[in-house]
């Protein structure tokens, strides 16, 4: 009868047969039961090994889930941006970019450019007396166990000042923030040419909530908010639902310059709209060709850059999780070694009764595969619980962790492979024993 063989395993041993082998056997699952019972014989040891591997698997699945949530959020955020951002060559974001103001006319002259507006992007000096650095220190020093979500949220919510030219902005059709204003009176209005030189700001509902009035109520249109030690009147409230956008305080560009000590000759970036958003890639190429020292970034390019960054982050985190996986595998090796050492006589008896080395190898590997599979399932369940809990804390960030079937399967398969790898050496060792020596060692 032809048996199915994969690598070192004799799958027939486990009751898995090739179609041609259908089958005079009445009970081909006996080996699975045998392997399973061997695991259950020492439940505490099995449970400890299982925990050792399932926690790194939780880390892997959780990491994939977080990474995917970040990518989704970025994708959703960037899908709202239809223009091109021009910033200093090599700058990661407008916050870290500076360009000369006179580039505006040169950009406007590039064929295909329909509208262009200068912007200043800087981290807010302070909001309601709290600076960015101060917020970070405060987050570290003052942990409120009753509100862990607040801690995490604050770390992610350092406000950013965006200075816009209200006059030029009027030509822009695709801006994100004006479209995200709350409906009705609560939303107020966006910046207009009449706001030039004023201390008017448009803020997100999140900033309004995070910096409430003395009575604890969120700030609303018409209220004032202290930024950099100066009072600013809130004229509009927006909500995009994205943690990357809902941290922005929008004010007239000249006001931002004064507040942030930015010279009139300098801007952070330019927001450019082309005649046809579908041709943004070509537009950025033309801008980069026409001007030295600038990068034109389309939403796709931002997404790609972010994707690369996320991939590097994934690699780093995977490397970290790999260490935990390694410890888990060592735990499996330890468990299986102890198990096989205690069972020398048993292996001797099996060999005495005609079991080949391959059969013994398969039996022990099946046990460690069970262990890996179980650890994968447990890790998956832990990851499910983790995402459910984490999502409670992340509601306001726009991040939503989900475990896709692909990630769940990957995690469980990884665990299975780790289990089998961990069991291979003890299995090999058990299979190589001379039956007589095994029986005598077992009896002694």
């Amino acid at each position, binding site marked *: 009868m032809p048996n199915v063989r994969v690598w070192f395993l004799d799958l027939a041993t486990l009751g898995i047969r090739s179609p041609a082998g259908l089958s005079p056997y009445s009970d081909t699952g006996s080996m699975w039961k045998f392997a399973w019972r061997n695991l259950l014989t020492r439940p505490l040891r099995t449970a400890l090994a299982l925990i050792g591997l399932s926690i790194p698997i939780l880390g892997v699945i959780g990491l994939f889930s977080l990474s995917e949530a970040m990518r989704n959020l970025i994708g959703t955020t960037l899908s709202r941006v239809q223009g091109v951002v021009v910033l200093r060559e090599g700058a990661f974001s407008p916050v870290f970019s500076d360009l000369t103001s006179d580039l505006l006319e040169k950009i406007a002259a590039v064929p295909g450019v329909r509208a262009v507006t200068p912007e200043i992007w800087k981290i807010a000096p302070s909001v309601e007396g709290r600076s960015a650095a101060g917020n970070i220190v405060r987050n570290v020093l003052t942990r409120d166990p009753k509100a862990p979500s607040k801690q995490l949220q604050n770390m992610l919510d350092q406000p950013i000042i965006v200075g816009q030219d209200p006059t030029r902005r009027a030509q822009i059709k695709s801006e994100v923030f004006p479209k995200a204003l709350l409906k009705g009176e609560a939303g107020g209005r966006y910046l207009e040419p009449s706001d030039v030189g004023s201390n008017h700001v448009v803020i997100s509902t999140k900033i309004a909530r995070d910096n409430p009035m003395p009575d604890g109520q969120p700030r609303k249109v018409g209220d004032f908010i202290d930024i950099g030690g100066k009072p600013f009147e809130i004229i509009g409230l927006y909500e995009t639902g994205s943690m990357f956008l809902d941290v922005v305080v929008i004010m007239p560009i000249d006001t931002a310059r004064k507040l942030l000590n930015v010279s009139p000759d300098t801007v952070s970036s330019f927001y450019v709209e082309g005649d046809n958003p579908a041709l943004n890639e070509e537009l950025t190429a033309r801008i980069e060709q026409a001007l030295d020292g600038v990068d034109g970034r389309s939403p796709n390019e931002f997404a790609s850059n972010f994707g690369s960054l996320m991939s590097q982050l994934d690699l780093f985190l995977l490397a970290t999780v790999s260490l935990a996986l390694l410890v888990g595998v060592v735990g499996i090796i330890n468990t299986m070694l102890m198990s096989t050492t205690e069972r020398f006589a048993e292996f001797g008896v099996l060999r005495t009764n*005609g079991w080949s080395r391959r059969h013994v190898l398969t039996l022990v590997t099946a046990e460690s595969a069970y262990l890996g599979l179980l650890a994968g399932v447990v890790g998956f369940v832990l990851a499910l619980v983790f995402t459910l809990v984490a999502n409670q804390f992340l509601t306001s960030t726009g991040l939503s962790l989900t475990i896709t079937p692909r990630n769940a399967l990957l995690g469980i398969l990884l665990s299975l492979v780790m289990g089998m790898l961990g069991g291979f050496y003890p299995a090999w060792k058990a299979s190589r024993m001379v039956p007589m020596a095994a029986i005598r060692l077992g009896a002694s």
Partner: protein
Amino acid sequence: MIAVENVRKTFRSGSHDVEALRGLSCKIDRGRLAFIVGPSGSGKSTLLYLLGALDLPSSGSILVDGHDLTKLSETDTNTYRRDHVGFIFQSFNLIGNLTCVENVLIPFLPRGVTAAQKARAVELLTDVGLKHRLDHRPRQLSGGEQQRVAIARALVKDPKLLLADEPTGELDSKTGDEIYKILRHLQAQRQTTLVIVTHDRRFITSNDQVIEIQDGQLVGEDLYQTRADLR
């Protein structure tokens, strides 16, 4: 017929070699009941294990029905162990996670158990008086019952050679008597060659062959001579 020819077996023990068998030769006729006797450490069990192909001699040959065990391939050795030899150990060596029936079926587990094999296992367990213990685990059985399961396991493949290493060594004398009774009955019924290592010579009868070993060498193969020595 079994022919052991000038067999030597050396073990490594720490920094020195121990010679368990020193050029031993003997013959056992097919269908015979043979006892291997001798003091502790004389090499009795080593000889038995070599007959079961559980290890290879350092030199010499062991012929079973004309086939030299020392020249068998790994696969043929496994087949020999699986299909042609039954082994009974002093300490029973049942597997604790398996029921009595499953223990008996161990030789067949890797390839899947047929209904006929299972029926045969039940029949054998019934023959040795364990019909009511089929699904019990070894820890639920007495020593005598465990050894009877081991006998059923050794017989389930209808071996032409049955090897028993001190089968009553861990049993009280009454239970030991029962086990010998069973072994003799089954051997006579099946005409299986049965080789027993023992210290206990009271079970030896005039029809049995006796192989006496001392310091790894044969000191007596003739039944009457050995029995005369005993007297």
